[in-house]
């Protein structure tokens, strides 16, 4: 069991900066994020895009902002659980929550800070009728264990890196692979595109371009995927597995079931301290809502700063909190003793 002062759900910019502000109050933080790396949307969606409204930076690449935040919080030694989804929370004592991830990791703390951005990044699912019925019965949205596909007939759909990479890797393992893609060009890395084209020319895979999946068929398990090719029309393909790889999209996820007041996929908070309706749980950044809310990183930083003051008073109601400037004492002055 991991024990900390603040469990921060979401390792995006707001979650990361919370570590700094909490560190100034000697509060320890543990961050949980479903993505395998810190940075949230900045790393996952737009690492190479410039951001122009971070005070003091006329322009900074999203990826660099995350790198800088990681450096800024390093002295406070935050710990991370990455690649796991915050699944459930339980009140396990007076001022004690236990959070459990989808992989069973448990973390205990008096305060939970939800800095979940737009939600949990989950695979984008094609809106095909009956698709959900076949989840775990022939439809997979990610490849966890390539061996599962040994000697099986597979259809992979998509045109990005993951579709190309898995086509290449599974070509050696599967009995038969069909890759379908809506265009004749791919957006993936050039050498991957070349390799896929080579595999298709050698007859090792079936490459069907200008085509999309339009239906799934089967009784209890998937047996056929119906596709539509622009010139050849509709065709049903016999398969064991259908793997649609269309990137990730954020969804609110399990947070919706934690008894928090939610308005249009956002958590309602008191702007005094960004507390939610559940004592000990705060929400900051893009995931919260209040009158006048702006989804800006700089607003999230402000929210994080005020929030930790309130969290400190909640954890230590008898301790007097004296406010100090980092410029006077340096960050070392906050991390020592």
């Amino acid at each position, binding site marked *: 069991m991991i024990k900390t002062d603040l469990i921060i759900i979401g390792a995006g910019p707001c979650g990361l900066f919370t570590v700094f502000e909490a560190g100034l109050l000697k509060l320890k933080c543990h961050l949980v994020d479903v993505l395998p790396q810190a940075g949230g949307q900045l790393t996952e969606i737009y690492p190479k895009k410039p951001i122009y409204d971070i005070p003091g930076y006329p322009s900074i690449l999203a990826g660099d902002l995350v790198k800088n935040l990681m450096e800024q919080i390093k002295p406070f030694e935050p710990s991370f659980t990455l690649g796991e989804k915050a699944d459930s929370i339980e009140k396990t004592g007076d001022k004690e929550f236990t959070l459990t991830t989808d992989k069973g990791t448990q973390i205990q703390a008096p305060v939970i800070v939800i800095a979940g951005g737009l939600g949990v990044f989950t695979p984008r699912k094609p*809106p095909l009728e009956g698709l959900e019925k076949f989840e775990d019965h022939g439809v997979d949205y990610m490849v966890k264990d390539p061996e599962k596909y040994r000697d099986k007939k597979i259809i992979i759909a998509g045109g990005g890196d993951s579709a190309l990479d898995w086509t290449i890797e599974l070509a050696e393992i599967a009995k038969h692979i069909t890759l379908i893609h809506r265009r004749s060009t791919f957006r993936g890395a050039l050498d991957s595109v070349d390799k896929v084209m080579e595999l298709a020319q050698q007859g090792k895979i079936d490459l069907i371009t200008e085509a999309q999946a339009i239906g799934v068929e089967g009784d209890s398990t998937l047996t056929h995927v119906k596709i539509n090719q622009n010139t050849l029309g509709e065709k049903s393909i016999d398969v064991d597995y259908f793997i649609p790889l269309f*990137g990730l999209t954020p969804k609110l996820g399990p947070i919706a079931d934690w008894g928090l007041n939610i308005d249009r996929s956002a958590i309602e908070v008191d702007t005094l301290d960004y507390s939610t309706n559940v004592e000990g749980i705060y929400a900051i950044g893009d995931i919260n809502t209040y009158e006048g809310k702006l989804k800006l990183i700089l607003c999230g930083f402000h929210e994080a700063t005020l929030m930790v003051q309130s969290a400190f008073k909640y954890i230590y109601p008898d301790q007097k909190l004296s406010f100090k400037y980092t410029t006077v004492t340096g960050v070392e002055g906050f991390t020592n003793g």
Partner: protein
Amino acid sequence: MAKETIQIKVKDRKGEEHHLEAPTDMNLNLMEVLKSYDFPIEGTCGGMALCASCHCYIRSDHQLKEASEDEEDMLDQAFFVEDNSRLTCQIKVSEELDNIELEIAPSSE
């Protein structure tokens, strides 16, 4: 004088038609207009052609600027993409768009 407001016809995912108005002088794109009318368009990336959550079909014969390579790449992550598919965040509201007809594409669940 330039037209200050244009008319937009939108068919939602239930097939219902709506008539919207949008100002041409506020530097808006069609995704922002749809969001402001509370259509269930996510616009997750804020308008950078990086999420495909504002996918619509252009149902009128307006001649629009061709989709950029970035937009095409992102459309690869959308579903039921047709020849007239566009990411509405990449289409600026302008006078030329008057009476444009859009249909919101199915969402990914």
